[in-house]
Each structure stands twice: as C-alpha cells, then as structure tokens.
C-alpha cells in the first residue's frame, strides 16, 4: 500500500469497509482500462455511492496531498483511467442512478456510472441520446464526459460535448460546484464545454445533465463492397459534395472484413477490398428522396455488390459486423495496437496508401476500420507480443501513422482521448505556448495537480501562484533592462 494508512481508514469510514478493497488481487483488477498495454496497480481503490461520498473522498485526498484518478467502466482506449501508484482510484460504477427524466424539456440527469445505452433506453423509443461509442452497452456517461466520446453517428449528430448542458463537479480541493443546468447560453464562461473532454484532469463529475432528441422517423442502411478503399473513399467524397449528410459512414478494408466476417458470418465477401456502410436516417421524405441516389452513387462508383438492410435484423447484423472488427483482430494476430488519428477526409487515399507502405516496410499487417465521414481512422497494427522486438516495431509503426495524419493537417486523436497513450504525440500538434496555455486551465481548476496526474500533457508541469498584476521593474522604468 502506497497511500497513507490513515487515508485508507478514512475512505473506509466514508464509503464502508466493503467498498474499499485492499487485497492485491482485487486492486489488480483495476490496473488497466480498455488499453491493456498500460498497467499500474493503484495505491487504493474506493467505490463511493453518492456525490457526497465522492466529495468527502476527494477532500480527504486533498488534505493528504494524495493524487486521485476517477474511473467509470474502465472501457477507455487511451489509458485515461490508468491508476497512479501513490494515488486513490475513485470508481464510480456504483453511482448508476438516473436521477431525473424530464422529457417535456428533453433532459436527463444522471450519475456518472450510468451506462451510455441506459440513457437512450430511459427515453426511448420516441427519443434517444445520440453519442454512441462502440462500447455503449458498458461504458459510463462519466467516462464519456471525460473523453468527449463520439461514435459511429457523430458525423451527423455530434459528440458528447454537444449534448451536455449541466454538470455537478467535485473539484480537486473537494469543493462542489454546479455548472450550467438544463438551459443553454448561461452567463459566464462555458466551463461545461471546457470540462467535457478534459480526461479527468479538472475534477470528478458527479451529476450530468444531458440533452436528448427525438428519434429519427426512419433509418435506411446499406453495405456496399468495392475493390479498393480508394474507390469507396471516392464515393464518400461524392456523397459529401452532393450535400448528403449520412447518419453514419463507416469503412472497413479487406483485412478488417475478413476478421469481422470470421466473427459474425454475416456473408461479407472475403475478397472485397473495402466495405462501406452507409446509414441514412431522419424523415421518411428525406431518406426516401436520398436513398436511391446513394445506391446509384455506390454503383456508379464501382461497388460490385450493394446489400440493403431489408429489416431491423439485417441492419443489426451490418452493425454487429462493423463493431466486431476490433475484437475480431484476434483472428489475425495475437495482439494489436489501435490508433485513433483523424485526417481531413479528402486526404484519405493518400494516407491509406502511406499506411500500406509503412506496413510493408515494417513487415506488419495493418487493418483499417474507420469513420469515413469525419476522417477518423482506426488503424489496427497487428503484431505478436511473444516475438522478440515485435511490440516495439508495432509501436514505432503506429507512431509513424500518427505522424502521417498530423502532417496532413489532422489530429492525434478523434475520440479515444490522449490519456497516457498519446501524450508523447502532443508536441506534434501543439507548441510550447499552446501546451502552457492548456496548463493555465488545469491550474485554475486544480492548482495542486492532484486530479489524474500524468495524463494528457507530454511532460509533468506544476502550477505557480497566480501572479499579481504586472508591474514594471525599476530597471525597466529606467530603461536599463527589457523584458524578453
């Protein structure tokens, strides 16, 4: 145990003995989140049941100068919820009450441990909560808020940040603060917007107010098969230039198709170079008017097979096959390394070509599964962890893929977050002044650096005191020195 014994005793008195597991094998179950490459056994684990308990736990951490990490369901893919050795892991999975369903105002108020899917279930079938990460059956809203999670439908519907209107937070000093509410455009800074996506470094959200919207009247889904990702990519460009805003546009390359098909037996042709899933949703009028146009664009663009989902079961199979792609990589190689880079969509063909070249150069297979509408790639670098040097080669290759994407004007992460996994790539996107400016926000919320330390920023940084108003130095006054 590497946190003070008195602190552990206090955690027990706050949350009850049974909610502060201490056996090493219990602690080890929390050593990683969904990204298993990174592991750290936490100093202590606590499972509070209420906002008040979270507040008392954080206050106790602050009093003893102990860092803490909040964790939802642990399904994150950037090591964002990886514990710190000398810190407390605050697991919010017992906080899974839906506090209020206010359908007349299209708001739902939840505790952070509520799963993503539970929100849509609470307001369905008339309404739904659009952000839909692939892990939505298990992932928590608290985690979604921390990571600003997206999903397959965010090209049209937006991300978590577009649906959070209010937050109750416990700041790193144990203070509780209410930001926003059910209304929008509330006076003052948009601290809700600043908090969403801050990866647990600004505090712990204990209550979240979400906007829900009417479900689309109808949904039409197809999967089209092409010889190459290049052809499929051209069709995506055509759709965009025709002004068609699809609910989802998802692409898989040959390796991903073969792996996913092996897992689901959906009947996807194993020799297809690319599968493009296109989903239109919205009003009957609009979908009907657009769907035939979409089918024609696919056929004109070289699709040799277009499979239209005739019913909900066929639609579910198309989606199951797409969502199985990650897990099915086990069929290709024992291990894989997933990236989350984003590129301007028009650079897709060039970047995919470069990824292929790099894969050949490194002698490793790279499968591609991606959100084609918004240019969010998920290259899966396959490797065998038992082969000497291969994990390192895979990591190096993954890093080069990220660099390629940033060089094309993209981003190191579209939806998984920076966490520990991508912080070393931050300097490829942001200069020293940019990073120092990020740190100003962090210091305003958490001057002691206790909330989720070691994440997001490439190098550890401390917060100085807030300097007073600027005063000219006497030497400056006298014209003897200049501030550089």
């Amino acid at each position, binding site marked *: 145990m590497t946190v003070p014994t008195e602190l552990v005793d206090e955690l027990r008195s706050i949350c009850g003995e049974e909610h502060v597991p201490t056996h090493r094998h219990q602690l080890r179950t929390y050593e990683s989140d969904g990204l298993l490459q990174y592991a750290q056994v936490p100093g202590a684990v606590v499972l509070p049941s209420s906002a008040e308990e979270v507040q008392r736990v954080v206050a106790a951490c602050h009093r003893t100068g102990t860092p803490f990490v909040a964790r939802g369901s642990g399904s994150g893919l950037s090591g964002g919820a990886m514990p710190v050795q000398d810190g407390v892991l605050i697991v919010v999975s017992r906080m899974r009450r839906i506090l209020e369903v206010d359908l007349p105002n299209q708001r739902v108020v939840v505790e952070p441990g509520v799963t993503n899917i539970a929100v849509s279930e609470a307001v369905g079938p008339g309404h739904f909560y659009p952000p839909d990460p692939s892990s939505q059956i298990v992932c928590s809203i608290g985690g979604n808020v921390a990571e600003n999670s997206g999903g397959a439908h965010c090209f049209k519907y937006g991300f978590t940040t577009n649906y959070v209107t209010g937050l109750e937070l416990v700041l790193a000093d144990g203070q509780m603060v209410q930001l926003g509410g059910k209304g929008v455009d509330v006076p003052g800074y948009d601290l809700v917007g600043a908090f969403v996506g801050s990866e647990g470094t600004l505090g712990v959200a204990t209550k979240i107010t979400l906007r829900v919207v009417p479900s689309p009247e109808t949904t039409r889904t197809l999967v089209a098969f092409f010889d190459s990702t290049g052809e499929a990519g051209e069709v995506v460009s055509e759709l965009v230039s025709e*002004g068609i*805003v699809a609910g989802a546009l998802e692409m898989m390359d040959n390796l991903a198709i073969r792996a996913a098909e092996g897992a689901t037996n959906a009947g996807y042709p194993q020799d297809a170079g690319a599968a493009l899933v296109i989903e239109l949703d*919205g*009003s009957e009028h609009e979908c009907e008017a657009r769907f035939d146009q979409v089918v024609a664009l696919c056929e004109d663009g070289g699709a040799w097979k277009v499979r239209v989902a005739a019913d909900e079961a066929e639609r579910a199979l198309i989606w199951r096959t797409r969502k199985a792609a990650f897990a099915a990589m086990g069929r290709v190689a024992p291990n894989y390394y997933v990236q989350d880079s*984003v590129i301007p969509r028009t650079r897709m063909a060039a970047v995919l070509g470069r990824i292929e070249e790099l894969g050949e150069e490194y002698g490793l297979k790279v499968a591609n599964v991606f959100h084609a509408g918004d240019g969010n790639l998920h290259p899966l670098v396959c490797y065998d962890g038992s082969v000497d040097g291969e994990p390192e080669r895979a990591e190096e290759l993954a890093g080069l893929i990220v660099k390629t994407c940033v060089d094309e004007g*993209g*981003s190191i992460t579209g939806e998984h977050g920076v966490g520990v996994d991508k912080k070393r790539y931050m300097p490829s996107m*942001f200069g020293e002044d940019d990073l120092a400016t990020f740190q100003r926000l962090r210091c305003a919320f958490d001057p002691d650096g206790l909330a989720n330390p070691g994440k997001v920023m490439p190098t550890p940084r401390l917060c100085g005191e807030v300097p007073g*108003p600027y005063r000219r130095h006497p030497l400056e006054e006298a014209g003897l020195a200049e501030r550089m």
Partner: protein
Amino acid sequence: MSAEELAADLREASEAGSSVRFRGAGSKFHWGAAAEGDATVISTAGLDRLVEHNEGDLTAVVDAGARLADMQSTFVSAGQMLALDPPGGDATIGGVVATADSGPLRHRYGTVRDLVVGMTVALSDGTVAKSGGKVIKNVAGYDLAKLFAGSYGTLGAILQVAVRLHPLPPRTATAVGVGDDPAALAAAAAELTHARLELQSLDVVWEDGRGAVMARLGGATAADPAAEVAAKLGRHDLDSRVEEDDQPLWDHARGTQRSEDGIVVRVSGVQDQTRTVLERARDLDARVVNRAAFGLSWITVRDGAQVDALRNALVPSPCVVLDAPAEQRESLDVWGPQDSGAVALMRRVRERFDPAGACAPGVLAGVG
C-alpha cells in the same frame, strides 16, 4: 495588421497598466456590463482573411476580423454554409464568437460552441496559442475554443478560428401557424419539438398581441413535409400556411433578437417555459423570439421594471440584458444573479489567462 502585431499591442497595453477592449465591427460592443476604466481599443479590422476554405472537408479557417456575411457568400457559392445566422449584417466572426451570438439555424446545427473546431488566441502577456485543429473530430488537448466562445474578450483576443461547414439544403420551406393564444402557440411548438421531424429551425415569434410558430424544413424535399407540419399547426387552432419563399420570415425572426430603442433580455430557459414567456410578453406588450427546442428567448421590453418582472416570472432561468439604450443601461443589472460557486471558478480561470486583469475588466460581472 497581423496577428503578431495585435498580440504585441495587447502585451504593450497590458504592461503599461492599461485595460484593453477588442473590437470587430462594433455591432455588440455595448453588450455586457460597463467596462472599468478607460480602455485601449484594439481593433481586429485588419485581420480579415479567409485563410482556408477546404470545400471537400467542409471546413474553413477564418481570421477574427472577417465579416461573417462576406465569408458566408464565399461558402454559399460552393453550396455550403457556416451555420451561424445571428442578426447584424456587419458582424465579424470574432465578435460573433466572443459573444456566442446565434440565430435560427441553431436548431439543427448548434451554435458557436458546436461549430468552432479550432482557435488561435492572444493573451495579455503576448502569448499566442492555438487549441483544437481543423478537422471536425478531435479530442486532443483542452477545448479552449469553448472557453473563449462567449467570453466577451475577458480572457484574451480571438485571432483566428477554424469552423465546420455544412451543405446548403437544396430547398427550404416554412410552415407557419399564427394565433393570439400563448397556450396554443406553446403547445404547437412543443409538439413539433418532440416530433420525429428534422427541422432546420423552429421559432415562436410574438409581437403586437399575436404570435406565430415557424418551422423550417430544408433538404432534398421541403414543401411536402412543410405541408404536413402546417397541418399539425392547424390542429392547434392556428391559421396555418406554407411559405416557400421563406428567407424574409427568418430574417425577421432573427432581427427580433436586436433592438435600437428597447431592452433585449435573453432568457436561458427550458422548453416548458415557452407559454409563460409568451403570456408575460402579452401582458407587458413586449416582443419575443423564442427558439423553442432550446428554451431560449429574446424578449424586448421598455424599462428596468419590466426586466425585473421577467426575472421574477422566469426564476431561476438566467435573464441577461443584451441591447439597451445607453441612458437606461447604467441602471440595469445586465447579468442578473449568478451561482457564486461557478462565478468563483470562472474568476480563477480569468486570473490564470489574464493575470494582469487587462482584458475587458468588469464586462463579465463578478468574473472580471
């Protein structure tokens, strides 16, 4: 002027102990509480380039001093739009972002916070920093663009923004339902808000003792679905019709967010306050545009007593004064009551970004 020159001017003024205000077209310069002291005004007028228009990626990078209307005409000629339509033809992008102003398109596309994907700012110590990027999906680093959207220049100067664009719908048509019963108008708006429709805009306008629900359809089809919506409005005892040449209607609706001689109060309410808003407007003989799905209303009243009456009727929804005649402005509580915990945290943010306290001091009451 270049961005670097602006940042240097800001630093110099701050070092000289002067406070600074940033100015685009000046169309909303009087918004917010009165600034403390005599401020040096730094204009963004020279920063007016459309830096990039990436048609295929539906993104653009724009300097803060560029006029929104000018940018929009470039985007429109490519069949695209920046889905921000606040009132005021002269407004610059920087001013719209700094005040987080919005218009009817918000219903479908969101507002400044949702459409700005990257931002470059200058801080009072001369630091020039960027956040976000120019792709529409990106979670790397803190989302400082959201912090600066609606910050009224109190954190630093906005120099440049990257924005997401949307395809222009090929057709639009608007269903209109007119009546003088606030309850019927509110019920009709609520039905449309909860219906499985993909509206582009949904406003309720009230003036001169009558109101109208306006629902705009946009897409490959417009007139047929608009007729269906008009039929729904008719069932609420409203005089309903479809307007295919509908742009003037929406120009009028957003124009109702501004006033030269009245006091405009923006209410951050909830949907089920729409009826109360319209009833109060009827009683006070006020003018309203209500963005129904967001519970947002802009209400034009005549004096401070009416502002207080609105705040009392709509408590706890924040009611912020935007436009107001200069002679009345001084006696008005522009921002109204705020949560003290949230304000204290905002003050801490401001102290970190602008420790000199140079940027628009006093404009965001309680914060700086």
